């Protein structure tokens, strides 16, 4: 219940600021410019400048401007964002491909998918080996630890030079951002395996790779799954930077374009969609995890 409330509170605040004219509303949206030469309908003027003009025009016997209190363009009201979301969900047939929220998002999701797949294909096994065999850990982890501190976006120019300007460098950036953390986190998780289980397995004849495959992997699987969930969240944050590399694309391109045209309701809609997709997929994965690993009564 408190969970729902934690969403309702900020939404209420946003609605209050948007719809209650006495809250904030530092601007006036002009409905009729009157005789003020530099006003035009639809423009937003600071409230004190507007009041001055009203006074001046009335004193001069000319038509005073009229307007309603408004917030800045960068704070659209909830219903405007909702409409933008609705349009995004039901795009007009004639809209250009890259201007559609849905197709931008789909492009972003593909980048994340491939990047996460590539990173995991190497990072998960390597992390498990690092955690299981101290020799592997000592051989690889110091370098990985160092590399982890190199910010992934710093490799942008390099990635473009090597991989071209389309999707490949973007995938590379997300992989660089995810992979090194992934190895370290999974190695740590692997080291947390209950030692008693490993010993029990050894007395039953499990050795080396068999021990890893038949005991370590199943033992850490629920925790590994949760790690992957968290890592996927991090991959999303690298996505935005990655999409600015080379030819800007995906949801980031959509956001920058819409901001340039001052369609801030679309910007908010896009950011919200990012949140909904991220949070929603996380909830889905958490639910799936409980179903997949019934023996693990997770605290999360």
């Amino acid at each position, binding site marked *: 219940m408190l969970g729902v409330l934690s969403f309702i509170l900020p939404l209420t605040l946003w609605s209050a600021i948007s719809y209650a004219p006495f809250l904030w509303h530092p601007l006036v949206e002009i409905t009729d410019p009157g005789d003020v030469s530099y006003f035009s309908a639809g423009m937003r003027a600071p409230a004190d400048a507007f009041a001055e003009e009203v006074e001046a025009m009335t004193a001069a016997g000319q038509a005073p401007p009229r307007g309603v209190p408004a917030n800045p363009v960068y704070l659209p009201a909830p219903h405007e964002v909702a409409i933008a979301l609705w349009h995004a969900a039901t795009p007009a047939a004639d809209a250009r491909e890259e201007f559609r929220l849905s197709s931008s998002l789909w492009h972003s999701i593909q980048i994340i998918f491939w990047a996460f797949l590539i990173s995991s294909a190497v990072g998960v096994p390597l992390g498990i080996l690092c955690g299981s065999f101290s020799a592997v850990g000592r051989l690889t982890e110091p370098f990985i630890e160092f590399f982890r501190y190199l910010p992934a976006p710093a490799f942008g120019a390099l990635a473009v030079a090597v991989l071209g300007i389309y999707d490949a460098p973007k995938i590379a950036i997300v992989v660089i951002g995810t992979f090194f953390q992934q190895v370290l986190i999974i190695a740590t998780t692997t080291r947390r395996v209950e030692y*008693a*289980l490993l*010993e*029990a*397995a*050894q*007395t*039953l*004849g*499990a050795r080396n790779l*068999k021990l890893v495959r*038949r*005991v370590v992997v*199943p*033992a850490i*699987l629920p925790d590994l799954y949760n790690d992957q969930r968290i890592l996927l969240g991090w991959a999303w944050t690298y996505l935005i930077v990655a999409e600015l590399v080379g030819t800007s694309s995906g949801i980031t391109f959509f956001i920058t374009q819409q901001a340039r045209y001052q369609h801030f309701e679309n910007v908010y809609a896009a950011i919200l969609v990012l949140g909904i997709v991220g949070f929603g997929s996380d909830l889905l994965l958490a639910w799936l995890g409980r179903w997949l*690993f*019934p*023996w*693990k*009564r997770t605290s999360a």
Partner: protein
Amino acid sequence: MSDPSAIEHQVAARLDRLNAREAILDVRGLVKTVPHGTSERTILNNVHLKVRRREFLCVVGPSGCGKSTLIRTIAGLEEAQGGDILVDGKPVHGPGPDRAMVFQGYTLFPWLTVLGNVMFGLQMANKPKDEAAREARQWLDLVGLEPYADAYPHHLSGGMKQRVAIARALAIQPRILLMDEPFSALDARTRARMQAYLIDIWRKIDVTIVFITHDLDEALLLADRVLVLKTNPGEVVELMDVPALPGARDLDSPALKAALIRLEGFIHAQEQAQAAEDEPVTPIVRLAPIKDGID
């Protein structure tokens, strides 16, 4: 039960038979040390021990005397710094299928069903799956848990978990079953039932048991012989024959009462020596005068 001297004779005859058998486990001059700061600390010092085939040996001793270390070294989970451990005449290097272990904590694999747990060791030995499953069911039947074959460990009670652990250990058909306080986490009633189960199983199959306990009653109920260890460093104090036949034993019988008093004597003497060594005697300070009218 009727004639104490008749039982005495039977017990003596049984121990003679045991002693005539080959030693299945032969521990010779075992030394176990651990690094302690810059120097080393000796946990087990020159432990000699012979366990005969199908013997039930209990190991007792004050807390921290090295009982677990001894059994874990026999299991091959820890390395010895000196001496030899021979099983069937062959020296032990690391864990092996000739020794299986049941731990104090519950060490069932939570991701496997009860059947899967019992099959684990068989599959590690590369038995085909259906054969492993068939054998595992027989072992589950032996501990009376066949109906729970498809349940997961977290659905079982503590006693049932330990029964599965016993079945899992026995399934690899070890020569020696090592048990480190396997029932100490169970409530008294369950523990009594488990003790009866264990004796029953032990009499049905060809296995030698080394069983650690801190409960002297338990040792006297189960064992043919009781090994008493002392602390700091862990050394053998006594290897005592239990004056009773296997099976339902009466702890109130004079022979076992006397045995208990002897065992308590060994342990108690050490504990006093230990306490004298460990803690400086603190004078008791009375905070209130005795005659303050409270009593």
